[in-house]
């Protein structure tokens, strides 16, 4: 299906920390938008995984955050920034299986130390920046297949 994007589309979603009830709302909205635009299924799948994990991290760890998306004919850029505790050791946090999630979050099946690695695996460009006590910013780019 051709990608129906002749102009750039951007928008953002607010994410409230601790709000497990609406978890996935932002990434679901973005997925619906991409589906409507006729974006390639594999691109939607990768974006869904990457944004859902980013959204969950805000909900699990931060007081609040924002997911901003920018869709162009070339691909999708996503920026998620939060007012959270920040990450002390990013290299460690990027390791699969490492998590600082509390037990009650782990009992829900989250906090397996797969979130950040999943985001990285599913994006073409992945950047993470964090300041302890201030928050974390994640930037991801997922390119559309070149025609």
């Amino acid at each position: 299906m051709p990608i129906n994007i002749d102009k750039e589309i951007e928008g953002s979603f607010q994410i409230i920390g601790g709000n497990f009830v609406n978890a996935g709302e932002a990434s679901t909205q973005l997925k619906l938008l991409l589906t409507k635009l006729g974006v390639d299924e594999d691109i939607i799948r990768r974006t869904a995984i990457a944004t859902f994990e980013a959204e969950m991290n805000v909900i699990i760890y931060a007081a609040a955050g924002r997911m901003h998306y920018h869709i162009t004919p070339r691909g999708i850029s996503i920026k998620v920034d939060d007012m959270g505790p920040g990450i002390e050791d990013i290299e460690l946090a990027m390791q699969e299986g490492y998590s600082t999630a509390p037990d009650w979050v782990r009992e829900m099946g989250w906090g397996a130390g797969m979130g950040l690695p999943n985001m990285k695996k599913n994006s073409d460009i992945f950047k993470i920046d964090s300041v302890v006590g201030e928050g974390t910013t994640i930037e991801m780019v997922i390119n559309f297949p070149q025609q």
Partner: protein
Amino acid sequence: MKLSDFAGELSLEVKTCKEGLEREITGVYVSDLLSDVMANSRAGDIWITLQTHLNIVAVAGMKNLAGIIIVGGRKLPEDTRQKAEAEKIPIMTTPLPAFEAAGRMYRKLKEQG
């Protein structure tokens, strides 16, 4: 194969979205870690888990899973049931533990070829 083909074999009790039972299933994924399901399940899979909280509905929706089977006779919380109904995600429960539920589905899917 359809979800309804497993109803008797697994003593499934359908909790939400009855019409979803006629969906074609392409595979099964067993996991209680939500990020693992996000990463490794495939669209059209049935997801076998013991998790019952609300977020399973979002995960199943994001991955276009065919439905969720909750094992071990666990009860489905009302908020999860309502969300699944609203988002048309079929959820079933089975008294079987995960190993047995998965085993029976595996055998039946293999027999079909």
